[in-house]
Each structure stands twice: as structure tokens, then as C-alpha cells.
């Protein structure tokens, strides 16, 4: 048997002989949570995140099966691998939660978000906004002589990029839906 070298008061075999602990690299994960569509279920999910100090980058929820009383909550969150695993386990504990899928871990997925942008401006700026909207395949859903409302769909990154470009051109208001996501492929 390996000799024991642990004496009372000695620390040489404790703090300085550490096992590889949890990784502290932050990751971004998209979770799909299928829940019973009942009152309070969203409050339970949000309460879990705020109560335990987890991050929510984006959260969307809507009923997806009226007869089956199912809603789908899509959550984009960040955390270390250990925290992400905790979030999934904690979500799984909520009684009206049926399934928790980590789309980031389960393979490739598509993520889309819809956003509306109000851009105010005249002259060159107005023309430039319209030209950029065309490149981003954003459509004009409302027009006045000094403003546009654009509708754009895409990944959150694409929408962020569009916002960056519109800002100097007179961006005054943004509404975003948050992410909807599905795994790719037949499964």
C-alpha cells in the first residue's frame, strides 16, 4: 500500500496537489426545453435561471402543440461546461419539463431570429440603408418619407451585424424575437 503522508496540519497533500478540476472556459449553448403548457411554467424556468445565477442571452417561448399542451422554450445561455451541465440537470428536475435538448451538443442545428429595425434619415443615408438592407435580404415592411422599418431574419450574428451597420445610418429602434432553433437532419 502506498504510504500515507498526511499529518495533521500539513497542507502539502491538499491544496497543492490538485486534481484537474472543472474547466473554466465559457461556452455558449442553445437549449430546447419541451414543457407542459401550464400556467407558471415559464416563471419556473426563468426563476431557476435568476435564482441560481445562470445567464440568459435569449429566451423564446410559444405553444407548439395545442392538443398535446406542449410549449417549446428556446434558451441561449453561456457558462462553463459544468454550469451548462447543471443548467440542463436543473431544468430536467422541473416537474412540467418533458425534455431538455442541448442543440449545441447534439450536433448541428439551425438557429434563426427575426428582428424589426426602424431607421430614420434622409438623403444619402437613406439610400445607403436601403442598399445594405438589400444585401442582407431584409425587407421593407413600413415606409415614410423619412423612415423605414426593415424586417430581417437570420442568425443572431447576422442580425447583430445588420444592427452595427444601421446604427450610423439613423437606427432608432430595434425589436428582436430571440432565437428559435432546431437540430438539422431527419432525427
Amino acid at each position, binding site marked *: 500500500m502506498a504510504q500515507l503522508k498526511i499529518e495533521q496540519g500539513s497542507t502539502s497533500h491538499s491544496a497543492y496537489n490538485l486534481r484537474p478540476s472543472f474547466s473554466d472556459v465559457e461556452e455558449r449553448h442553445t437549449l430546447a426545453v419541451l414543457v407542459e403548457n401550464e400556467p407558471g411554467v415559464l416563471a419556473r424556468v426563468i426563476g431557476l435561471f435568476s435564482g441560481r445565477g445562470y445567464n440568459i442571452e435569449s429566451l423564446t417561448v410559444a405553444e407548439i402543440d395545442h392538443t398535446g399542451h406542449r410549449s417549446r422554450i428556446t434558451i441561449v445561455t453561456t457558462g462553463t461546461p459544468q454550469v451548462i451541465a447543471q443548467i440542463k440537470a436543473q431544468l430536467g428536475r*422541473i416537474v412540467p419539463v418533458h425534455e431538455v435538448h442541448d442543440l449545441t451538443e447534439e450536433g448541428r442545428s439551425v438557429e434563426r431570429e427575426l428582428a424589426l429595425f426602424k431607421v430614420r434619415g434622409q438623403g444619402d443615408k437613406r439610400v445607403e440603408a436601403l442598399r445594405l438592407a438589400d444585401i442582407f435580404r431584409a425587407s421593407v415592411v413600413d415606409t415614410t418619407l423619412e423612415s423605414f422599418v426593415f424586417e430581417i431574419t437570420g442568425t443572431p450574428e447576422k442580425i447583430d451585424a445588420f444592427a452595427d451597420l444601421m446604427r450610423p445610418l439613423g437606427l432608432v429602434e430595434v425589436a428582436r424575437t430571440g432565437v428559435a432553433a432546431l437540430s438539422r437532419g431527419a432525427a
Partner: protein
Amino acid sequence: MDGQMTGAKMVVQALKDQGVDVVFGYPGGAVLPIYDEIHQQNDIHHVLVRHEQGAVHAAEGYARSTGKPGVAIVTSGPGATNAVTGLTDALMDSIPIIVISGQAPTFMIGTDAFQEADTVGITRPCTKHNWLIKDTDRLANTLHEAFHVAMSGRPGPVLVDIPKDVQFATGGYVQRTDMKTHYAPPTLGDAASIEQLVTAIETSERPVLYTGGGVINSGPEASRLLREFVAETNMPITSTLMGLGAYPASGERWLGMLGMHGLYEANMAMHGSDLMICLGARFDDRITGRVDAFSPGSTKAHIDIDPSSINKVIRADIPIVGDIAMVLAEVLRVWRERGSKTADHSAWLDQIAKWKAKNCLRYTDSKTTIKPQYALQRLEALTKDRDRYITTEVGQHQMWAAQFLGFEEPNRWMTSGGLGTMGYGFPASVGVQMAHPDSLVINVAGEASWLMNMQEMGTAVQYRLPVKQFILNNERLGMVRQWQELLHNSRYSQSWSEALPDFVKLAEAFGAKGILCKDPADLDDAIMEMLDYDGPVIFDCLVEKHENCFPMIPSGKPHNEMLIGEVATEQAIEAGGAVLV
């Protein structure tokens, strides 16, 4: 009894169908229809507590001492908010209880109606699940589901909020056996991990079993299998505060409790082990101390029914999600099938014997003052052969009780571990005594904690519950005082118990018996007098006022830097540790 009935009747019917024989509660406007039904039957015994917090702790005591769910009924508004502490306590300690609360009628919800409170909102974070029932037709199924959720997987508290109009309206009753639910947490461990665990046990030279409340939650079969497992593998075993009794204190391999106030040998064994098997414990900070220095050289197996317990604090090398009894049965089966043998542990057991020889619980006794440790040693000596249940309050006395009382069976020890609720022990003792009318039930208390729910004396006297309130009276908020001594240079801010009542007169005022004892020479006789009295007793045991509870691992320190006995404690806790509780 099928068919149509009022919501109020359904409550009583569902309780009967669930085999409930005792409920603890307090009436009010929003539950009057339910109380009217309770009045008209004899199967369910209702215990009128004196405060709703008492009802919930009593239900917890009932549940923990029987393995059955405990039930409490409270009215809306203040009744429900008074239940919050007990619900949180039960959530932290995984105690299955069902709280039924009244609510303003559905058509008045949201209007700041009389005694309206957002009870499901308030109790959402302190229940395993809760329901607001808006339709009498859904009530019976929900009540059955509430019992199911409270009892399955990791047990916990649930609450069913029933508006008054739902209690009056009629609806269809659903039998317990027809209950619909999708809630079915997994209980059987993964086979490959179990094989891996058995291999780890075969090769380990310094194994230790770290057991917890989950073994008690799992039921008597888990404790039985645990004993078999220890006998077969010869492994030393320690337990958290919550798991005491799963393995007998008189057992050969017993190390005593571990953790902040645990035994030296238990903590050193955890620190020095090469294989730690955690059974139904959750690596609480009272156990791990400094996380990065926690048992640095061991492979860690963690068996827990709740996936979120695993890898929450400490990384598990062999994680197994499952029920303790089921996993242990499987481990034993594989162990025997493979004809497994343990490696030679003798050097390890010798080392443990040396740690034991340190006698870490030693204290300086006195001929003139009762030392709290001495009082508990005498209580143990005079009661250990009886059919005994112990509850505690929170503080130094709780730790001393855990150190000095021995538990041979599970479900005999009721204490508030996770939340640390002062005021838990007395009402819990009421609940335990209701469940075990002929047994000896003792609440080991500190005077400050005991005062927090002392109104339950009325309940004890009314129902002739011979609960023994064994108060170690140091006239201090002892645990707070100890921390102030160690951390705040003995500046004892607000940690006195001033203007204490005369406990003997107090007992008499309630119609109970009071006993005062302050001389060590009188202690045995006084304890015998308490035991012989057939009724509730307040035992005011005046003890040393400045005794500290050792051993102690200061917050933020690793296990092998434990303080033992009356060592020089100055600067024992550094600034970093002081922010921890």
C-alpha cells in the same frame, strides 16, 4: 367512493385514499369548507398547531420518522406565508410533505382580495412543485399527483393551493389508481458504471464510504443493504448529519459524522482516501470545506437519484444516477457474481485507528458546572436502550447531539441540516410523537431556538404528547457566540439570551412539567425524572455558557486543518474564510 362531490370533500377523500392518518393544520376563512369536512369524519386525525410554521415542521418530523409523506393544511394569505420557512426547510433536506393551502375565490384572484397572497408565486422556489387549482374537476387528480411528486425521485415538499369556490363546487373524483402523471424520474443505475465501481472497490487500498440523507430517503431497505455492503467489503464508513442511523453507531466500521463539526477520524479518512463512494449525499460546503483541497487523492463515485446533485460541487469520476437501495442491490449482485474481494486494507484501518486514538471529542469536564457534552453523554447513557427518537433545534447543541448520541437505526434522527432552521425541533418532535405515540421522543434544544416555536407547548399539552424538551441552556446564541469568538475578536454582538423565562414556571403555565438542573451531581436523577413523567416536560439544563463546539474545520480550510479541543484558536480563521458562513 367515485363520482361527484365537492372540492372540500375531495381533499379529505384523497387524503384517506393516500393512507393519511394525521394532518397538522390551522384553520381560517379560505379553508373553512375543508375544515367542515374534517369535522364530519374520524379517519383522519387533525392536530391543531399554534402556528403554521409548526404545522409544517410537525409534518416534516412525521415524514422523516415514518418514511411516509407528512401533510399540513393552512389558510390563505398569512397562513400560507407562515408555511414558507417549513417548505424551504423540507426542500433543502429532501423531506416529502404536502401542504394544502386555501386561496381567495378564483373570481377574486388578482384583486388584492382579503387574505389573498400569490401563494404559488411565493412558494415556487421553495417547493418541488406547486399547483393552483382553478377547476374542481382537476382537484382530485392533482392531489394524488402531489403525493406522487413529493414521494418519487428526490423527495420534497409540494403545495396545492385551492381557492374557496373550488372547495365549494362539485366535480368528479378520480381514484388514486387512476391518477395521470408524466412524472417518473429514473431509479435504476447504469450497469456499466456499476461494473466500474465494483472494479474500483476491488483495487482500492484506502476506501471510504461517505453516506448521506439519501440513504434515509431511499427507505429501510437501503440501510439494510448498506450494512450488508459494509460487512462484505470491510470499508470504513462516515455519514453526514442527515444520514445518521443508516449505519449503526455501534457498527465496527463506523467513523462517526464528518464535516465542519465532524470527527477527526472521519475527516482524515475522507482526506486520505484513494476511493470515496458517496451514497446519497450532496457535497455540502459543511462537508467539503475548501473545494479544491477536498480529498485530493481519491477517485470519487457518486450515487444520487438527482442528476443535478452530481458534478454540482465536486467532479465525480464514477457518476451513477439511481436510487440507493436499487443501486446497492445491483452493486452487491455484481460483487458476488464476480466473486470480488477487497484489496488489503489493514494499513488503512491501522491508520484510522491511530486517528481515532486522538479522541477528538474530548473535553474538560467539571464537577461544578454541567458541560453540554456531559449532559448529552448522560442522556445517551440513560436512553440509548429505549425506543427513542431525537429531534434537534439548530446550534451548538445540535452538533453535540450529532457527536454524542448514537443512532442504530434510520429515521430516528430529525434535524434541520440544509436550512438550519431554529425553531424546527420542537414542532418536529410533536410530529414524531404523533406518528409514534408510545415511543420516547426527545428534542435536544438550545434555549434561543426553542423560544422560536415555544407556542407549540399548547399543542403538546392538548394532545397529551409526552415530548421531552431537553434544553441545553447556555443563555447565549451559542453557535453565533462561538463564531464571534473565533472570527470577530470576541465582540459578542447581540448573542445573549436576555430576559429568559423561568422554564419551570413556563411549563407549569402550559400545564406541563418543568425540571431545572444545574448541578452535574443531580443530572442523572433529573433525567430519570423527565423520562418517568408521562407527559410533556421542559427540561431546563443550565450548562457552561462559553463552551465551544469542537472539532471544527474553519470555513475555507481543508479537512486536515481541523481545530481540535481547546486549541489556540486565535487567527485560526483567515480573512478569506470569514466571508463564508
